[in-house]
């Protein structure tokens, strides 16, 4: 029991509970002294903020910074010796590999949670009429499904980046290890707050939280805002750290155009998330203040303009989907040459296409607002900028096809997920232009077609590559490989089930099914399709369950692999698995191109035997 309480996570959560209660009490007391009556909403918000801070302080993420501020000596992060073992995964660790796995855990937990929400409301939708949920519960569940999974995706990306990037670029750790730990631990109280929105009244708005509904609805929206705000800061600080790491910590000889392509993808992603994330934080903060202090930003009743919220919100939330898919597309470009045994076709173009997507991504947010009453002269420019995104994305597809062309393809589980990702993302890409073109979007907007399109892009751009990445890099974490049998079962169940689900969604969307509604008219004739979608959804969930079982079994009993299992040229596979404490026992140097598979006598990295003067 004592051991249990010594875990940082447990301590942090206890501190968060204490802090929340104290914050609520404090605000109540201040209001009482001012002669104001008790009001739950401001007390909850204030308590939530205090609770998040006490979590971070209680778990010890800020201790070193406090010592620095007081001028006390603090060891360099590389000199901190952590006792190996399972316990350090549950407390503050400065090791990027531990933090990567921590992010991974949290990401998988939120993935399961967000997926479960979907199963619940999909069951409700299997039949017309309200069966077991009421409207508020249904609305809360769809909103939570969206936002919890967005949090999960951000954490999954952070997991991949944290674990792999320093190993890939030959660094000992991230540029700012303490900030790295801080970013991760911020995400924990943020997730707790986000999920708590369900228990303090829920909310009606869906994940987009549009005012004026979010200004007037139940109080759960405040916890939702607060949770997203904190998770957003976690993402901002994490990506800031990644940019600094990628730009400053590369091994000697690794110029920008000799980086593994995944590093390029992460760099592009991080540029978006360091900057644009602030705008969702700001817009949510403004709605919070509108509710708490009556500030009239968005509610027309007090002179505000709800369209402004949509501009600020989508300025993040559209680039956000590029935050989600760029790392996944990077994984595809990273793994394809390994399994095709051929150089990555058009390396520079692929690298710059990530940047191209990131930069164009800043110019397209208005395509979410074609029907919302946005200034009409903005429609066509936003349509063109949206369609422009197809150009850098197309470059990636050409590169993938050309990389596979005449390659000696091998098909272990990671490769299957890569190919699945390419196919599903192609579906997402092809269904995009009708939604981005004004004339067609006017009909498709807010239908299930958009739901189908979106899930295609998320699964093709993130979920499939994420699974590929986990199957691929799992040996680097554990020293064991994941079961191929279960992995293939996972894939062959997931792909058809998922395609059935999204084609079903797009079909009923075209037939006129609106998104975000708890009920539909059985006369519309898509009850059967809805049932198929629900069944497919459960099959997708079942395949993910197989994946979780595989993770659990393989981590304990999987086949032991120590060396370069996939015959990759990348630096992280030149060191033993699991990756040792300070990554590279001897410094490495880059002497060639990263993806020259199949070219005789070509080398990418070599070990610097004698630590040279530099």
């Amino acid at each position, binding site marked *: 029991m004592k051991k249990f309480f010594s875990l940082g996570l447990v301590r942090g959560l206890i501190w968060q509970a204490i802090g929340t209660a104290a914050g609520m009490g404090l605000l109540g007391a201040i209001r009482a002294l001012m002669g104001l009556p008790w009001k739950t909403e401001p007390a909850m918000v204030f308590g939530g903020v205090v609770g998040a801070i006490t979590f971070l302080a209680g778990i010890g993420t800020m201790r070193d910074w406090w010592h620095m501020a007081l001028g006390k000596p603090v060891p360099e992060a590389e000199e901190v010796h952590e006792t190996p073992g399972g316990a350090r995964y549950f407390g503050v660790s400065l090791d990027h590999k531990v933090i990567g796995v921590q992010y991974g855990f949290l990401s998988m937990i939120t993935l399961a949670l967000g997926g479960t929400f979907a199963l619940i409301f999909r069951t409700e939708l299997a039949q017309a009429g309200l069966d077991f949920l009421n409207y508020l519960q249904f609305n809360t569940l769809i909103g939570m499904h969206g936002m919890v999974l967005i949090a999960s995706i951000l954490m999954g990306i952070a997991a991949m980046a944290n674990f792999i990037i320093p190993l890939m670029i030959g660094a000992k750790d991230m540029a700012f290890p303490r900030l790295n730990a801080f970013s991760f631990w911020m995400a924990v109280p943020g997730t707790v707050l986000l999920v708590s929105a369900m228990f303090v009244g829920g909310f009606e708005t869906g994940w987009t939280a549009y005012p004026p509904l979010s200004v007037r609805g139940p109080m759960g929206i405040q916890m939702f805002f607060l949770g997203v705000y904190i998770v957003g800061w976690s993402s901002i600080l994490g990506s*800031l750290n990644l940019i*600094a790491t990628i730009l400053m910590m590369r091994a000697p000889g690794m110029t920008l155009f000799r980086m593994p392509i995944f590093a390029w993808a992460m760099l592009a992603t991080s540029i978006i998330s360091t900057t644009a994330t602030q705008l969702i934080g700001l817009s949510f903060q403004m709605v919070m203040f509108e509710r708490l202090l009556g500030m009239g930003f968005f509610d027309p009743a007090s002179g505000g303009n709800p369209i402004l919220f949509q501009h600020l919100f989508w300025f993040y939330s559209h680039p956000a989907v590029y935050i989600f898919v760029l790392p996944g597309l990077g994984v595809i470009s990273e793994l394809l040459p390994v399994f095709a045994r051929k150089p990555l076709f058009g390396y520079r173009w692929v690298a710059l296409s990530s940047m191209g997507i990131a930069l164009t991504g800043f110019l397209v947010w208005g395509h979410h607002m074609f029907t919302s009453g946005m200034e009409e002269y903005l429609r066509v420019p936003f349509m063109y900028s949206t369609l422009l995104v197809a150009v850098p994305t197309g470059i990636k597809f050409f590169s993938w096809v050309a990389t596979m062309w005449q390659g000696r393809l091998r098909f272990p589980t990671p490769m299957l997920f890569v190919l699945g990702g390419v196919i599903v993302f192609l579906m997402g890409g092809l269904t995009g232009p009708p939604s981005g073109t004004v004339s067609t979007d006017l009909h498709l907007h807010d239908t299930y077609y958009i739901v189908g399109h979106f899930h295609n892009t998320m699964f093709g751009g993130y979920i499939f590559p994420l699974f590929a990445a986990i199957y691929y890099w799992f040996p680097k974490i554990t020293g064991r490989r994941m079961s191929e049998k279960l992995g293939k079962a996972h894939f062959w169940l997931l792909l058809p089930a998922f395609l059935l689900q999204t084609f079903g969604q797009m079909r009923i969307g075209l037939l006129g099914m609106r998104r975000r509604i708890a009920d539909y008219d059985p006369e519309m004739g898509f009850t059967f399709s809805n049932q198929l979608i629900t069944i497919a959804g459960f099959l997708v969930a079942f395949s993910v369950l197989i994946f979780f079982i595989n993770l659990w079994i393989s981590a304990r009993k999987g086949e032991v692999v120590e060396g370069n299992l996939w015959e990759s040229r990348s630096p992280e596979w030149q060191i033993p698995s699991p990756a040792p404490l300070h990554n590279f026992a001897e410094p490495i140097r880059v002497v060639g191109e990263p993806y020259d598979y199949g070219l005789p006598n070509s080398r990418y990295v070599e070990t610097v035997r004698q630590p040279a003067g530099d």
Partner: protein
Amino acid sequence: MSTHTAVLTAKEAARKMTTRRLGLWLFFLSDGFVFGGLLVTRFYLLGQARPHLEQFLGLIVTAVLLVSSFFMNRAEVSIAHNDRKSFVRNTVITMLLGIVFLVGVVGFEWQLAPFGPADGTEGAVFYMMTGMHAFHVLTGVIFLGFILRNGMRGHYSAENHWAVEAAANYWHFVDLVWIFFYPALYLIGTVGG
């Protein structure tokens, strides 16, 4: 931080410093988007109108904040030349000017403004912009408090004063934001009805 830097080679130390600077500037870039979003909000909601504010007070607080950056720079240059006395003096002046700014905005302008935060878009925009900026000035003053304390105890030298550099850059950044906020709130447009 101080004791271990000596262990690193000069090249490693220089690289570390560049990394820190990059991190700080990335933070400014990120934070800049918050203020950019607020400027967008101001022009989207108020357009050519501007809130009715005390022009003279606005001019004074703006002048005070701009002048504070001069003393901030003096403080940083002083410590870079190992002149601790001048560092302490200039840091104290910067902090005092920062506090005068805060008192001017929160203590006076907020009380004198003819609207409260709940009074329409004018109130919302004005209190959000000045509030967000004042929050940054406040954190800047706190940051300066820490470097003042450590500076007086002799923790900084010409070679080792990254915290001073960071605080000074942060101060200038917050100052720069006001250079955009001041005209947006006080000068551009006409006072409506």
